[in-house]
Structures are given as C-alpha cells and as structure tokens.
C-alpha cells in the first residue's frame, strides 16, 4: 500500500531539515530561503515540487493551530469486541465528525478524533456513536497541550 521511500540526495535532506519552520513572509520568500541554503530560487522551487510529488513531504506552507481557528477536538476510545470490529469501524467512520481513526493493540482497541465546530457538537457526536454501536465512547479531551520540539531529521 505504501510507496517505497523516495531517494533523497544531500540537498533534499538539507532542504527538509532547514525548512520545517521559518519560511519567510516576504514578496520573494523562495529566493530568500534559497540564499540561506546556497541554492538558486529556481532550484529550490523545483526541488520542493519534486519532494512533494515524490511523497517525501506531504505539504509545504503554513500550518494552522486547528483549535485556534475555532474548532473543537476530542480524542475518544472504545473497547470493541474482535468479532464486531470491522462493522463498528464502518459505523464510526460514517460519522463526518470522525477526522481520523486508528486500530491499536490494547483492550481499548479503537482510537479516533472527533473534530467539530463547537464543543456541544463533540458531545452530540460521541452520543450518536454510542447509540449507533451500543458501545461506550471514552472521552479524552485535552486539558493541557505542551510545546512540541518535534523535528524529523532527513
């Protein structure tokens, strides 16, 4: 299902490592970023297009804090009996409020995120899923989020 990893050369890795944040907000941002990397504007643009089309990067641009944009989110978990798992997954996924859903190796074996415009809609969606499946939905809303130092090293 997954494509084989794209081949990256030293310049690709340099671009991925250097451009995970701090892309300039200026009229010619590629030219500015390219100069810092010792590249030309055209070659940086061409490399980014290749990295994106080859699947090494999933997106290039601004990343938004979804909650700051006004949405509501809640991580939820269910303990689904193995025999019913696929049928329950189909019922859960049919709710448009379910943004993503993972099977995990645990007694609580289904973990999904509800994303809605308002906090009230989170509760309504969780209740609707409980009604559809006959199973309890455990709610794990975030109480505190921590600054993330995560960087992928290419």
């Amino acid at each position, binding site marked *: 299902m997954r494509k084989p990893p794209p081949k990256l050369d030293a310049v690709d890795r340099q671009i991925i490592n250097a451009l995970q944040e701090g892309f300039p907000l200026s009229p010619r941002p590629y030219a500015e970023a390219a100069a810092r990397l010792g590249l030309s504007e055209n070659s940086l643009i061409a490399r980014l297009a290749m990295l994106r089309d080859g699947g090494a990067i999933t997106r290039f641009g601004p990343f938004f804090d979804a909650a700051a944009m006004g949405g509501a989110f809640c991580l939820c978990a269910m303990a689904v009996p193995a025999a019913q798992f696929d049928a329950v997954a189909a019922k859960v996924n049919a709710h448009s409020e379910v943004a993503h859903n993972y099977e995990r190796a645990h007694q609580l074996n289904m973990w999904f995120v509800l994303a809605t415009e308002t906090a009230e809609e989170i509760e309504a969606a969780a209740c609707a899923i409980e009604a559809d499946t006959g199973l309890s939905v455990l709610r794990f809303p975030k109480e505190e989020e*921590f600054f993330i130092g995560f960087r992928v090293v290419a």
Partner: protein
Amino acid sequence: MTLCARDRRIIEATQSGLPLTPAPYAEVAASLGLEEGEVISRLAALQARGVVRRIGVAPNHYAMGMVANGMTVWDVEDAESSRLGAAVGALDFVSHCYLRPRAQPVWPYNLFAMVHGADRDEVEEKRAGIAALLGDACRSSEVLYSTRILKKTGLRLTRKGAP
C-alpha cells in the same frame, strides 16, 4: 479566538499549501482579490497570535524511515504533571504531548506522548528515556502501537456548518 472573514479566506486559500512560484503570496492575494502586502501582514499577525504555528515543509514520516510510532501513556502525579509534560513535549522525538483526564478503572493514564522511530525497538528505547525523565512521579505506563489506519482525513477549516 476569533478570525475575521479575510483571515479565514487566507487560511482556506493556503491550508493545502503555498504555490510553488517565485511570488506565492502575490498569487494567493490575486486569487482572493487582495493586495500582496495585506496577505503577508495578515499571515504575520496570525503567526504572532499562534494561529499559524509555522510555515515550512511537513516531512512524510514514513518516507523518512520513521515507520514506527507508539502512543505512550503515563500515570503521572497531578502536582508534577504540568512541569513534566512540558519536559516530555520538548523532546525531539515526541510529536504530540497532552494532559488528558483519566478514565478509571480502565484507564489510569493522564499524560499522552506520541513517539516516533525507525522501528519498535527505537520507540521502546525512547520510551525508556521518557520513563527515566519522569522518575518516581510516574506510577505506571503503557505504549499502544497502531495496527491499522481506519480513517484519515485532513482537518479543514471549511466543514459542515462553517460559514
């Protein structure tokens, strides 16, 4: 936090990516009937408010060889949880870190940290590093590996019910 209509339009126009052309903000501006300067200054203001977290590339974890990820979960003393959560979130292999309510008796854990690595051994090694950092403040922990993606959709500003 509220967003004005122009901010929302700029977010909608850029949330799937910036144009890969020499003057990307001018191109976004032209598509919205705005001036380039306004798009740049609005994005700068959104960044200052934290609505824009960063501008740059999103590397594909899998393509970078980081094919294993585990949701590590920890039962950490409440009095210490904010301080320790901040320390865990600052680790460069943790991509998400949150305090969440416990669901006793089935779920005693309040600190969630998503850990990435090349394989499960590496995830376990990093998990041991978190355990050492938490020390006696942690009563118990587990790691949950994902075995299947059942659904994955991008989070989008424009959804059902959005203005």
